[in-house]
């Protein structure tokens, strides 16, 4: 299992702030394969993570990218580009 977190506009459009999901076969699990499984849920999820959308990902609270590998217990956060400061 991995913990998924969603923030800001992405949280609002998905209607979800936190969930736990099972990973696919561990050797092939990456952020990209996780996102693919999320997009398969329904049109809303598909649209939120479509290639035209700007989203960012952090794994265990470090900025990551689609190629970042995942393992059970990881905390994966998805969010829009940041706008602090």
């Amino acid at each position, binding site marked *: 299992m991995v913990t998924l*977190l969603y*923030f*800001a*506009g992405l949280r609002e459009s998905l209607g979800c702030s936190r969930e736990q999901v099972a990973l696919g076969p561990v050797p092939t699990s990456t952020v990209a394969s996780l996102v693919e499984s999320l997009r398969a849920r329904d049109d809303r999820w598909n649209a939120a993570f479509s290639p035209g959308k*700007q989203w*960012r990902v*952090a794994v265990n*609270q*470090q*900025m*990551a*990218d689609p190629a970042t590998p995942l393992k059970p217990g990881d905390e994966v*956060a998805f*969010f*829009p*580009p*940041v*706008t*602090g*400061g």
Partner: protein
Amino acid sequence: MARVRVQPEDFDVGRELEALTRHRTDVGGLASFVGLVRDSNDGYAVKGMTLEHYPGMTERALEDICVQASARWDLIDMVVIHRVGPLVPGDRIVMVGVASGHRGDAFAACEFIMDYLKTRAPFWKKESTPSGERWVEARASDEVAERRWGDAADGPV
């Protein structure tokens, strides 16, 4: 060395800066920046905003930015404070203070920390305007400002 805080409360800029130099005689320059809520943005009137963040990662990202600044310049101490929650125009949002032996290092590190914070620290602003609420969009100019510091080789943003 760095003092990083994320909090809903306002902060006392003078006191925070004072703390960077108190009982020291090796600080030659103290550069600081305070960011405030403006009453307009991108042509919208802004009545207020709410700052959301990613607890845990926020502090970690700010600390990492300070570590990178310390590796690039000769710094004595620094402070980064960022507010979260509801704010109104005129409120302080963020402050960065950097103490160094020399003014060039203090200025550069202060601006670097702000530029990195703008593109790497997980905060999001939702503005309240006369036509409703809207999430603030990231600015291309902030990415440009960050890139002028060159590659830090610590992953995409």
